[in-house]
């Protein structure tokens, strides 16, 4: 037993140091492509850290969104940036931000070191045992409609946060669209390997997303994880060169985009009218309401994330002018 604890401890120590080391290297290395690749590796190690900290839901979310989708977003952005730079004939090297604190050049690391030491002290000053809200969660689980505690917090106890968070996603997509197209669309024909990969993998991804959504009620998983896996299927299709084109501006597509946040907000309003309380799910129907909310949320999250990856605005302007 003793050796096992020692093994676990040294594993934690190694993981911790690798995280910090990777973060340092990725932020300070010369090559941006390398930085992004290291960031994805960093995200995967973070997912490992979440597992070590008994947070499997967060690990799933991190692996799918934090490392996967963010990585894909960063890589395509870098590729587009390279195209822009080639067209404009500009090159960039690792450069200090001359505008920020030029005079404080040596002071900045020092000040940050002091901040870090102070924060570290504060972390250590926390009481060694604190139940947080775990007892409140445990007592109220029976009335939450689900048996998995993270889902209960996300969709029921603090469902209002999740309602607003869906709108954050939607606003970022509207923002991305309102800035307009970033590059000229260039169609790529996928090679046979990517083609096969996509054909085989997309159905599997859809299946995995459905599983994650369903399992969220009683085990790690849920709308955000399922939505991002489904979004990954969309990203693969987009990488294949599939372009939704006109679909993006059609009403059915827009309805899917807003279904998650919209249904959440309408549910909140209806429950207020019926029960006099925002988002107060009747205990006997809580499970089914949460499942309905999660299903629409999964679809919306998936489509929003994939659309963020595409980042091309729909051609709605042509349609209305």
């Amino acid at each position: 037993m003793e050796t096992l604890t020692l093994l676990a401890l040294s594993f934690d120590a190694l993981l911790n140091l690798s995280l910090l080391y990777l973060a340092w290297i990725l932020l300070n290395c010369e090559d941006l492509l390398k930085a992004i690749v290291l960031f994805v590796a960093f995200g995967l190690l973070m997912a490992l850290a979440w597992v070590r900290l008994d947070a499997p839901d967060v690990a799933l979310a991190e692996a799918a969104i934090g490392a996967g989708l963010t990585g894909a977003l960063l890589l395509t952005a870098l590729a587009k940036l390279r195209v822009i730079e080639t067209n404009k004939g500009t090159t960039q090297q690792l450069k200090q931000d001359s505008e920020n604190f030029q005079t404080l050049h040596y002071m900045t690391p020092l000040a940050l070191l002091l901040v870090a030491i102070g924060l570290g002290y504060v972390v250590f000053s926390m009481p060694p045992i604190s139940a947080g809200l775990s007892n409140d969660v445990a007592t109220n689980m029976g009335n939450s409609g689900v048996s998995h505690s993270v889902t209960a917090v996300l969709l029921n106890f603090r469902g209002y946060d999740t309602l607003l968070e869906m709108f954050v996603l939607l606003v970022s997509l509207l923002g991305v669209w309102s800035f307009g197209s970033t590059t000229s669309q260039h169609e790529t024909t996928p090679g046979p390997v990517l083609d096969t990969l996509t054909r085989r993998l997309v159905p599997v991804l859809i299946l995995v997303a459905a599983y994650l959504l369903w399992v969220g009620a009683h085990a790690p998983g849920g709308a955000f994880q399922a939505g991002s896996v489904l979004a990954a299927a969309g990203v693969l299709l987009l990488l294949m060169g599939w372009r939704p084109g006109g679909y993006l501006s059609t009403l059915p597509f827009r309805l899917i985009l807003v279904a998650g946040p919209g249904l959440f907000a309408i549910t909140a309003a209806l429950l207020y009218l019926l029960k006099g309380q925002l988002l107060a799910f009747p205990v006997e129907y809580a499970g089914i309401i949460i499942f309905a909310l999660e299903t629409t949320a999964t679809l919306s999250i998936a489509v929003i994330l994939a659309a963020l990856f595409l980042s091309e605005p729909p051609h709605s302007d042509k349609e209305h002018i």
Partner: protein
Amino acid sequence: MEVVFKEFPWVAVLILLPLLGGIVCFLFSGIAKFTGLMTVFFTALSVLGLGWQIFDNGVYRHAVGGWGAPLGIDLYADGLSLLMLAATAFVALGVSVYSAGYFERGYSTRFWPIWLFLLGALNALFLTADIFNLYVTLELMGLAAVALAGLAGGKNALTGAMRYLLATLLGSLVYLLGVALLYHGFGTVDITLLAQRAEASPVIWAAFGLIAAGLMLKTALFPLHFWLPPAHGSAPPPVSALLSALVVKASFYILLRLWLEIFGPLVSNTDVSTLFGLLGAAAILWGSVQALRQTRLKLMIAYSTVAQIGYLFLAFPLATAAGVAAWSAAMYLAFSHALAKAAMFLAAGNMLRFGGHDRISDLDRVVQRLPLAAAAFALAGMSIMGLPPSGGFIGKWLMLEVAIKQGRWEIVIVMILGGLLAAAYIFKVLGHTFTQAPSPHESKAVPASMEWSALLLAIAAVLLGFLAIPVLSLLNIGNPFGISEVTP
């Protein structure tokens, strides 16, 4: 009938109506403008309803989902929230009517959904009693604000929006770290429970430092104001009005709320208040001098915002001895600044639309050719300078009174200097509106809705000066400033 009004879920309407309205605008872009205007109108009416409700019944508390703090999220409305909601409603009405005329077709379909989501985020922010929920509303507000700031495109607007995005994201992250420390220190994210459980400790100090730093960055308090002038100066005028009038005030509101409820009583507050006061004074002087030096009208107004934010922070040192009076004065100023600054940006937008530029020295007889915009600018300027009988005058007068009573002459001097500098930069603009430019310019017609919305907001800012007693009594519902009162 009266029962219906008193029991009606105004709070739910205030949060959900703009969010759902935004969705409708997004789905049916053909009716976006109409839906947007209706949504804003009914949201404003709901503020009236909520005001009636809490005037009769006292503070409003609602446990979302029926769980109640600490497990669930509580909504909370008192006089302070009501004042911020009212300012939001007034500015929202004015800016929406203006925007209906301002944005062309293509921009209009993009503007309305994002703006309504921003309105929903603001209302949700003023109504929550949960510091993590505040983080989510802050992010919703911040991303929507950035999207609007970059709406017009072009190098300056994009640079301003990018700078703004980096500042607002950094501010939210630092705030979130403070929230994380508070949660783990005291086991709750509910403001009222935190106030009961918190005690002076390293956790409180660190959390206060982080939350204050994050929110100061978002409020653009000197010297963390660097992002504000480019963002507010280069956004489309109605967006600048929203950003300057409401968005920076929202983060100030959070800072004030948390200071009053949690940190003020714990953090040995004379040093911190003095620091806030010093930064506020520096903001007033620096912002005003910079405003005076600007050659572009919108940048001048943006720097004026930096200065006017300084006044709000002057209340910190004054409040240690006279909490209610100092905070009432500051909030009165915040309210009248919201109206006046929105009016000023809209008037500047009219001049920009009219002449195709906003060079101050080139305003070319705006007073004759665009009298309503010039009048709006002058009336709003009255309130910014603090001339009687405007709302700005009442706010400054109340604050001066407190400062004189306490013998804080340095604050009195800074306030008077700030007023003089404001007079200088506003009269500089007004002077140029009378003079003729060397070569006459092409001019473009400005729709009446844009002219009148700017003017009505400016008139409201002046009329606010006559409403001191009812506004102050509404503000003190629920005694939001009571806790920081030091009993002798």
